[in-house]
């Protein structure tokens, strides 16, 4: 007679270790210290969150056209709503606002095309975006062609100026930074020394002093009769400053390219520039794209400093609108609105850079 061993069915796990109760126990109340921390955090949230939600959403005033529409209990979003166009484009003439809208709409479409995977002719579209589109955008912003009235640069402002400063700074910093990075790794001692001095000098000083320099010293260095526009001076300063940071990012990419690639390019008899352009730089750029996006985020945040030399970017237009005697006392609303816009741009870019990092990490 054979004995068959039939095990009892497994007992279910104790109720305290599964489901909601188990999750709470594991994640919130695992030790006495954790319990204390959890309770403290809950108390803090209870004291902070409801008043904030009440102020920003429930008690807030949304509709109306003047300051009388705001009761004063909550946030006064009417202020932001009435000033919205001013925050977006600064003192750009009202009848011409369609021009920046068209330019940024076009930029958005081009970017969307470049970001979606597996679309044809990406190289051509990228070339168009980098080389032709900036000219189109400039003529849309500035005017003077095809009967568009001229809008001087001192009327440009708001988010539009923030975006112009950061993208133009980036466009110039990329090639200049690449040259500097190549110079720093070059075997020619003069080129190397000049690149090192240039990079370390700009990286060692704050952007404010660079902006002061470009606004105060550049006119001194110009021969008489040549007057540089204030925006152009800021752009020169930002581009030089940014190219030093860009150079270090690109240099890290150059260092990551295996030595065999350099030797193989030499063995094929390629000249220095051909080896760099065809073999080394494409591989280096691929590894540093996330780093480039990160420096772009830094630049985007740093463009706020131009308000110190008297340009009206997003933060400066918001700051300037606080002095309007009709709308005194809405500083918190203004900063929160500006902060939200900056945050959305920076956060989405940093997520994108994170995503790229994962996608490009093919592992050698």
């Amino acid at each position: 007679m054979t004995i068959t061993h039939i095990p009892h069915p497994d007992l279910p796990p104790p109720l305290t270790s599964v489901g909601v109760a188990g999750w709470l126990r594991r994640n919130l109340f695992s030790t006495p210290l954790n319990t204390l921390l959890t309770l403290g955090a809950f108390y803090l949230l209870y004291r902070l969150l409801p008043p904030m939600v009440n102020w920003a959403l429930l008690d807030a005033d949304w509709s109306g056209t003047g300051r009388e529409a705001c009761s004063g209990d909550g946030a006064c979003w009417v202020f932001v709503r009435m000033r919205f166009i001013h925050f977006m484009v600064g003192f750009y003439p009202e009848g011409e606002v369609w021009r920046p809208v068209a330019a940024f709409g076009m930029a958005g479409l081009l970017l969307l095309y470049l970001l979606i995977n597996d679309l044809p002719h990406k190289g051509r579209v990228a070339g168009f975006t980098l080389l032709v589109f900036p000219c189109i955008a400039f003529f849309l912003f500035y005017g003077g062609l095809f009967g568009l009235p001229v809008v001087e640069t001192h009327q440009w402002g708001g988010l539009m100026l923030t975006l112009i400063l950061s993208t133009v700074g980036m466009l110039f910093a990329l090639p200049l930074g690449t040259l500097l990075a190549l110079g720093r790794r070059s075997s020619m001692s003069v080129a190397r020394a000049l690149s090192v001095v240039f990079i370390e000098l700009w990286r060692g000083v704050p952007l404010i002093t660079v902006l002061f320099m470009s606004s105060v010293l550049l006119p001194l260095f110009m021969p008489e009769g040549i007057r540089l526009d204030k925006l152009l001076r800021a752009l020169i300063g930002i581009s030089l400053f940014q190219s030093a940071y860009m150079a270090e990012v690109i240099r890290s990419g150059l260092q990551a390219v295996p030595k065999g690639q350099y030797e193989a390019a030499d063995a094929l008899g390629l000249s220095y520039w051909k080896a760099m352009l065809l073999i080394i730089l494409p591989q280096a750029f691929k590894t540093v794209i996330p780093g480039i996006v990160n420096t772009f985020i830094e630049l985007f945040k740093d463009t706020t400093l131009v308000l110190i030399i008297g340009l009206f970017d997003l933060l400066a237009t918001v700051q300037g609108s606080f002095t309007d005697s009709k709308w005194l006392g809405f500083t918190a609303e203004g900063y929160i609105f500006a902060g939200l816009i900056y945050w959305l741009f920076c956060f989405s870019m940093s997520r994108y850079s994170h995503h790229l990092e994962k996608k490009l990490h093919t592992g050698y």
Partner: protein
Amino acid sequence: MEGRGHSVCSAYALRVMSRSEAITRWWNQAGNRALLFQVLLMLSVVLFFFLIGATALSNLEKQGITSGFSFLSQKAGFGIIQTLVSYNESSTYGRTFLVGLLNTILISVLGIICATALGFLIGIARLSSNWLIAKLSAIYIEIFRNLPLLLQVFFWYFAVLRSLPLPRNSLQLGDWFFLNIRGIYIPRPLPEQGFVLLGIIFLMSIAGICALKIWARKYQEKTGTELPLLPASLAIFIIPSAITWFTTGQPLYWEVSSLQGLNFKGGLIVIPELAALLLALTVYTSSLIAEIVRSGILSVNHAQTEAARALGLPQRKILRLVVIPQAMRVMIPQMTSQYLNLVKNSSLATAIGYPDLVSVFAGTSLNQTGQAIEIIAMTMAVYLTINLTISWLMNRYNARVLLQEQ
């Protein structure tokens, strides 16, 4: 005749050929090309600086500004709201420079200490096993590192500190701390007679603790026994100082601020500009440091922790002896660049009127004297020097903790 002419011609052609050939041969040597290129590069840089220098000189002459550093001994004639050394309106521009420099150093040092402490706290909380704490830290990090620093400075200054009540209705914490639109008032320590003795005793006990530590380490290396260092150090730290404190009759007096008329008198005042800048720098930089701390701790191989546990080390020793030293190696270069950024970012003081170097020297003094080249060069040189010093110190520290590879 004809033949001679031909031979002259061909000899000439030969000479020309050989010259062009020589040039080609010279050109084909990579070293020569590099030399030529570098000479041209050097010449163009020199020419560039010569041209802008000459233009600048002639422009300055037209504006009637004499270049040079003689303006530093002229009277500045403006007041500064916070000075660490004595300064008044009849002080010189040189003195202004010193005041600004000290204020910059003050905000940088305070900022580095606060941001490091808060950053470590949040970085560790980000890795906590407590879900709520980890998520809250993640939210903190994502909010503050994605907002421009200048916006944060403005927010703390204009939206928070400028909307505080007047001195009459100050917010207060106990009877010692007061908060109003003029600033934060804290008690000021005033040393009295006998304080020097206390200081000497204090320093001596610290030296004693160091000596004890060295001796204990030698003892442990010889015998393998670990001595209970903590109670002994605490005893050395507290007992002599406490005895001196009471025998000399408590030689430190805390001067508390009090409302007299419309304003507070006495005590130490932290001006709102300093408070706002410090808050913004701390919050912004700590969110970046927290990420560095997190990535540093995560970079330590899990096998290291397991090996330490297998050796029977208790949890806090695993952290102190195994995880943190290895995490530091990853963190130090990144921390260095954050510290450097903080020093540079302290120049945002200009925007709210905290009297730092850029604000009082590259701002007010430049506007008054017009000595743009000298002032901007001096300001940049200061930041360069501070940056190079910090990175030199951190590099030395980094070299000490670097992995010693065979």
